[in-house]
């Protein structure tokens, strides 16, 4: 049995710059490690197929009602709001092309990502955060199961692969909304509408939108998982994790949109 040791106060911790600045850099390094770990773990067995399929269902199928409603309404509203400007120049026949470019290039990926950030990102942040504060993640670890692989890899894979699919679905539904509105007002046939739509876009537009959606999906999954995985302070921390998952993901999505737009415009100019 030990003899009692006199209480010795530890020296104060030294910081490189200041406590806050050091913490910012430490957090950035933690994010870097968290992201890099995904690329290491995703290819290594064992694979959690059952959990991945469950997450595909959660991210994809369960988002469909909201995506359908939002996409359809956006198609109708955007067509309606664009019509007066084109009518002034007698150019309402350009409506399908205008709608097509707007939806395929920007609105489709962006709206899908924002809805997914709100619905899926917050749910991932809250679920993993709650598992963290109730020691379920520790329970996985002590049973020699890799919680990162089971929770993070499956969810990030699901958002990365499902959001491009949801984006294509959003584009389709929004175009259908636009077609109904155009058909009612301009009596345009479905074939003419579709020909105009596909004439206006290029392969680069479709490729760029898919690429953006993959990026947005990865961001949403990664941010939700990181915030959840690093939550603390009980139920308050879970709420914060859910909230900051949405806010951070949305800010990053807009920054990524801006940057990819610049790159794609540069490619288009080549």
């Amino acid at each position: 049995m030990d003899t009692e040791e006199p209480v010795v106060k530890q020296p104060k911790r030294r910081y490189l710059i200041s406590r806050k600045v050091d913490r910012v850099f430490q957090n950035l390094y933690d994010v870097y490690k968290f992201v890099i770990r995904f690329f290491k773990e995703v290819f290594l067995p064992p694979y959690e197929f059952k959990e991945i399929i469950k997450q595909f269902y959660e991210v994809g199928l369960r988002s469909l009602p909201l995506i359908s409603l939002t996409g359809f309404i956006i198609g109708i509203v955007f067509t309606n709001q664009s019509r007066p400007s084109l009518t002034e120049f007698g150019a309402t026949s350009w409506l399908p092309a205008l709608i097509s470019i707007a939806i395929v290039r920007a609105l489709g990926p962006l709206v899908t990502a924002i809805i997914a950030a709100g619905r899926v990102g917050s749910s991932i942040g809250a679920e993993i955060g709650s598992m963290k504060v109730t020691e379920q993640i520790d329970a996985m670890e002590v049973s020699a199961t890799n919680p990162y692989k089971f929770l993070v890899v499956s969810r990030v894979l699901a958002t990365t692969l499902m959001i491009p699919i949801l984006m294509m679905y959003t584009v389709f539904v929004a175009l259908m909304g636009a077609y109904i509105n155009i058909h009612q007002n301009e009596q345009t046939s479905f074939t003419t509408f579709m020909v105009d739509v596909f004439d206006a876009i290029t392969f680069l537009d479709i490729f760029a939108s898919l690429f953006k959606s993959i990026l947005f999906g990865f961001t949403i999954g990664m941010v939700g998982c990181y915030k959840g995985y690093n939550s603390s302070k009980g139920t308050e921390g879970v709420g914060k994790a859910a909230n900051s998952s949405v806010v951070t993901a949305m800010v990053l999505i807009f920054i990524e949109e801006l940057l990819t737009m610049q790159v794609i415009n540069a490619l288009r100019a080549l």
Partner: protein
Amino acid sequence: MKKTNPNINKENKVISIRGLKKAFEDYKVLRGVDLDLYQGENLVVLGRSGTGKSVLIKIIAGLLKSDKGQINVLGQDVNKLKSKELDELRLKIGFSFQNSALYDSMTVRENLEFPLLRHSRDLSQQEIDNLIETVLDAVGLAQTINQMPSELSGGQRKRIGIARTLILRPEIMLYDEPTAGLDPITSIEINNLINEVQRRFNTSSIIITHDLTCARDTGDRIVMLLDGQFQRQGTFEEVFNTDDKRVKAFYDYNFIE
């Protein structure tokens, strides 16, 4: 009062800790802890909240890193193990969490299957079902197999948590506050279950608690953690037969008699 387990093998230390130190920022939690756990023994670690009892078993399970000291579990130095080696060691350790830590999106069956599906891949579904049935019988909750954790009472959750650790047949059990938040009768049931697990599965256990009834009913040996070190050890009587005011205050506060 628990009768000391006659099967304790004092020749075989399953856990041996020397000079363990752990601090969080400026707060020193463990200040040089030495501990031995013998094969077949139930060792109770007593202490007030915040004295580092849970930290101690989390270090043993490799969930936390120690600042200093040697932690030897089943002949292996936990600090020197690689990730894969640590996972192999963890399969021999069962950890019962304070709040059970059941996976709340899974049924009781799925909770119990979870470690089996990952570590006993060669088992047939029939064998998995048999193992689940055995551990559920051991904790007396066979009827809850298809229930969700949210549908269980606190005591039932604890039992299922213990069943989940037992399914991999661990050699060592670590119980973190097994009776915290339970009514006295359920606490007694959990204490009996801890003793039953020791007998039936021949485990060696560390039981972290501040509940003296739990300590008295489950411990073959009791150590008391005060100011980051073990101050007293022995049987229940030996530990509390002292003039140390801190130990006496702890005893009086529990109103055990």
